[in-house]
């Protein structure tokens, strides 16, 4: 009996499917999830993955939580939903979570070899959900269909997973009619993993055989729901299926970065991996046009980064809080010596300290603002995945034009998962702007003298790398200047005069004025979901307002769409991409936005992924919303702090929306 999908597939226009695969970690689950993601991408869906994985290499004891959600939707939302139409369980440990994830009317598939039988409470839950259950003896199937002999091997795992994939594709109606789409997706998948075209083809053929077995097995099942999701034109012309960290790496290289210094740490490691591959792709190995170096520690990487930047290059260094905590001395030193050129990236994770290394959060905002000491700095948070590739150049430009340290905040969820994003060759072009930096040829032609003074705000000291005349002494804070420095054309020598220190603090803090207009402005998603730079003339008309930063913008956008389409409720979203400092012009916009929601039944929330409600606290301070003499506005908080990315449903539930 064919069943309409519309009743099952929720979402804005009926084209929204999510599959969850779960297997103990370390035996190849990644591969099949990426395959499915790519198949959806090439079937015309905005595909994303969401990995829940442990801090472990191989789960021999089957005790850790490990699953992937793979979602495809036509509306363009990034990120996943709480419930999946299809859930596949291959080991016992996460069963409670997995059964909870099954959507009403959905499908639950399990490996009957590994999970001999479901418990009565589990079965009851599935009955209540009206779920269709399939028990497959995957070990037997894998043994039959694997090309190697008996005994558990890698091949068996691959076979098992791909047969399952075939089965799942069968439930969705993606069968032999769409073999070309599947072949194309798989070929691309293996080539992106680094295989040659020929080796990839071999793997494609093998996997296709297993997928076909999966189709066969599905066809033999008594109960079939008759689902058919639409398979349309691939999104490949204008989009990529890639990770946030890849986007960040590409964005950095687009922004002029030719040096990467870092140290392996989840979730920043793949930023370095991506940069290395990209450097090699662009320039070849050991070409002298770039430098990738794995330092002995983040501590070392930080200081190397400052040295490399002083040598004239734009440098990317990416870490997570445990690494950033080690880098504070270097950041502070560069701040006080006013050395531009390093983009300090914190790919946030659940912490602090070691924390849960494989879970996400946005909990380091205040640390980045106040860490390392009292000095001004700029902190950018792209937030949406697309902006990961366009913001880095702005960060570097701000650094070169203000001589302040610039930090970029991302997180594990955006960095390590796959999303469907616009091609980098088709997004906005932002030119590299190096401010006053001069290369030797330019210096050779220079006819004006160098200004050695470094602490005037209306006169940026010229930056030049060693190798050209005009050496300067670069030293960190310790009152390094003399009265003369504050006169135009003064020379710098060491002093400990108290008035110099006071003047230093004042002058440094004014540096932001040089670039205040270039700081990425708040973005507004209006009541229709249209994205634009916030304009003080904006005609706000929302019933609910959401102020977001970092990756909460993605589920917020989906929440906005669901509330509009399903409940006729208007939501407006203010997305801050510059999270520090919140300069007066941005503050004004935020005040105006918040003011609109002080009327009657309207409400406004800050939506963020940390326990303390850090952005909300900052906004509620007297520099933004609680200005002297003003009435303190009502601003709520929607927050999540369990290490998992928010979903749209979560936001809606916590907004207290009455439908």
């Amino acid at each position: 009996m064919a069943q309409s999908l519309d009743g099952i597939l929720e979402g804005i226009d009926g084209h929204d499917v999510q599959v969850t695969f779960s297997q103990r970690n370390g035996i190849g689950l990644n591969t099949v999830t990426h395959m499915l993601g790519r198949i959806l991408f090439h079937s015309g869906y905005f595909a994303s993955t969401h990995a829940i994985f442990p801090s472990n290499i191989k789960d021999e004891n089957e005790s850790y939580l490990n699953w992937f959600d793979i979602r495809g939707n036509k509306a363009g939302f990034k990120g996943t939903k709480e419930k999946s139409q299809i859930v596949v369980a291959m080991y016992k440990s996460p069963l409670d979570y997995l059964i909870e994830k099954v959507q009403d009317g959905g499908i639950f598939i399990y490996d009957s070899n590994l999970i001999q039988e479901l418990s009565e409470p589990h079965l009851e839950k599935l009955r209540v959900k009206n779920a269709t259950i399939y028990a497959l003896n995957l070990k037997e199937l894998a043994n039959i269909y694997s090309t190697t002999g008996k005994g558990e091997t890698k091949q068996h795992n691959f076979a098992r997973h791909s047969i399952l994939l075939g089965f799942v594709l069968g439930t969705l109606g993606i069968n032999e009619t769409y073999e070309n789409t599947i072949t194309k997706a798989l070929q691309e998948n293996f080539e992106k993993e680094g295989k040659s075209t020929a080796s990839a083809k071999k793997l494609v053929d093998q996997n296709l055989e297993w997928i076909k077995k999966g189709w066969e097995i599905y066809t033999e099942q008594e109960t079939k729901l008759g689902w058919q999701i639409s398979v349309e034109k691939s999104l490949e012309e204008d989009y990529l299926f890639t990770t946030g960290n890849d986007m960040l790496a590409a964005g950095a290289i687009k922004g002029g970065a030719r040096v990467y210094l870092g140290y392996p740490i989840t979730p920043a490691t793949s930023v370095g991996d991506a940069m290395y591959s990209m450097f090699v792709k662009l320039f070849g190995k050991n070409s002298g046009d770039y430098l990738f170096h794995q330092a002995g520690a983040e501590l070392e990487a930080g200081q190397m980064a400052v040295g490399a930047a002083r040598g004239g290059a734009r440098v990317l260094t990416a870490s997570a809080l445990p690494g950033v905590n080690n880098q504070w001395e270097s950041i502070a030193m560069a701040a006080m010596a006013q050395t531009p050129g390093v983009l300090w990236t914190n790919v946030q994770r659940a912490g602090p300290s070691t924390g849960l290394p494989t879970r996400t959060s946005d909990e380091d905002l205040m640390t980045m603002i106040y860490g390392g000491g009292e000095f001004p700095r700029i902190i950018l948070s792209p937030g949406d995945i697309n902006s990961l590739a366009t913001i880095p150049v702005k960060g570097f430009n701000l650094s070169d034009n203000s001589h302040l340290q610039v930090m970029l905040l991302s997180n594990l969820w955006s960095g390590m998962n796959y999303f469907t994003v616009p091609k980098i060759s088709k997004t906005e072009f932002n030119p590299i702007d190096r401010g006053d930096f001069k290369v030797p040829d330019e210096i050779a032609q220079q006819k004006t003298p160098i200004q050695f003074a470094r602490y005037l705000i209306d006169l940026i000291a010229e930056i030049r790398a060693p190798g050209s005349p005009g050496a300067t002494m670069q030293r960190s804070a310790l009152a390094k200047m003399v009265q003369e420095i504050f006169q135009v054309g003064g020379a710098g020598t060491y002093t400990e005069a108290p008035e110099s220190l006071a003047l230093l603090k004042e002058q440094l803090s004014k540096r932001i004025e040089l670039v205040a207009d270039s700081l990425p402005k708040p973005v507004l998603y209006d009541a229709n979901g249209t994205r634009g730079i916030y304009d003080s003339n904006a005609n706000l008309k929302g019933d609910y307002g959401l102020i977001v930063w970092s990756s909460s913008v993605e589920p917020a956008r989906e929440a906005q769409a669901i509330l509009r389409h399903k409940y006729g409720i208007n939501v407006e979203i203010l997305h801050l991409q510059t999270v520090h400092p919140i300069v007066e012009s941005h503050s004004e916009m935020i005040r105006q936005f918040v003011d609109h929601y002080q009327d009657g039944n309207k409400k406004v929330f800050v939506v963020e992924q940390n326990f303390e409600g850090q952005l909300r606290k900052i906004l509620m301070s007297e520099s933004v919303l609680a200005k002297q003499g003003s009435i303190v506005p009502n601003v709520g908080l929607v927050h999540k702090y369990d290490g998992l990315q928010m979903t749209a449903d979560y936001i809606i539930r916590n907004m207290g929306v009455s439908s």
Partner: protein
Amino acid sequence: MSQAYNNGDLVKFNGAKFIYHDSFYGLNSLHGLPNIPFEEFVEKTFQLGGLTVNYKGFADAKNFVYPYLFENSANLANMCHSCGHIGIAEGLGKAIQELQLPPWQIALSSGIGCGGKLSSQYKAVLPENYAASIPNEGAVAAILKDAGVSLTTVTYLEQLLNLNRYHVIHGHATSHAFGLAMTQPGLVNIVAGGDGDLGAIGLPYLKRLIQNNVNTLVIPMVNEVYGLTKGQPSPSTAKGLKGRAMPDAMDIMPIDFVLETLAIPESTYVARVIANNRKAMKEHFISGIMHNGTAIVDVLSPCVTWNTEHDGKYYELYAVDVNNFNWDDVQTQLKELGEEIERFQTAKSIQEGKVQDSKRLKLEVETRKYNLFHDLLQEERIEQYDPTNKDLAFKVERRLVEAGFCAIGLIYYNKDSVSYQDRKGLLPASPIGNLTTEQLTLSLDNLLSLEDIM
């Protein structure tokens, strides 16, 4: 004879590699002094422990045109009078001067502590005859005035022509120099730090620098104390030493930079000098700069405030000059010293007793150290120390240190050293740090190429 260079030539000159910009040397463009008379440079050479060090320089020091008469004796960093570190500053200054390196090709990174003050020691001082009549001074002065620069021409030039100096965080002058080497690979890259900065917090990063054999000169300035924080023990503090501010005498053997270097399979150069020997320092620093890799030149540098017991004389007494050892000569010396002591034993003066004590100590210590060293050579069945033998170097230094001594001189070198810059294909002709905005901007083809692998 050296040839003159043309604009745009890649110059390899005395350890530095750079593109020649003739306007850097013409005063009209405000950058420097009249052209370097490269054609006047001759090949110069000296022997250091069996290594022949070659470089280019003026036949007669009086002809120095190039303006780095660094003013070390002015003690710009305000060190204690007679501090060993002042000697190091002078020695390094003389080495740079002898090499006549363009100052902007030199980077000096130093850490935290008294050792870290080395980067503050340098000030370019124009040669007297030049300062008296700067060509085009009127024009230069006018340009400075126009731009609102309130310095005199001389002061401006002194600022302009100093070497690059970086005072960085504790333990990381090595990492910082490593970073500089990545983006400006042709620099003469110098690292200086005390025994805490390089031997405690900084030791792992020093080792990473050595392991990568980054072309740098590293100067551990060893005085067995933490000077700037007032006298605490350091990892180099000798067993048994109780400096005036230490609560107790040191009860364990020190960390030794020479051993740390030799223990690294990739290390290619290590030497040690005592700071009171200016000539030796100058030669060792020149040799270190000319070495293509990480050159460690450990300097024993007495701290006159916190470690008066181990002064220059002490270090001389407890060190073995491995390059200049002749067993016959030594035996003769010891014999004569012994006889001298005996001769004076018959005198009655108490004051002579004092001289006798120091002479007796000298005899006792030298007998022990030279016998030990001689035994070590004998074990290897050699008469002379060979600084190209790493096993020998490690054994000798370890046994000397355990007995309370140390080696000085050129201890180990590998002339076939390949530097980090070479291995990575870094181009002094077009350093990463000199790429223009155009060169950094990705083309459409570049972007499509990246999309292939995303």
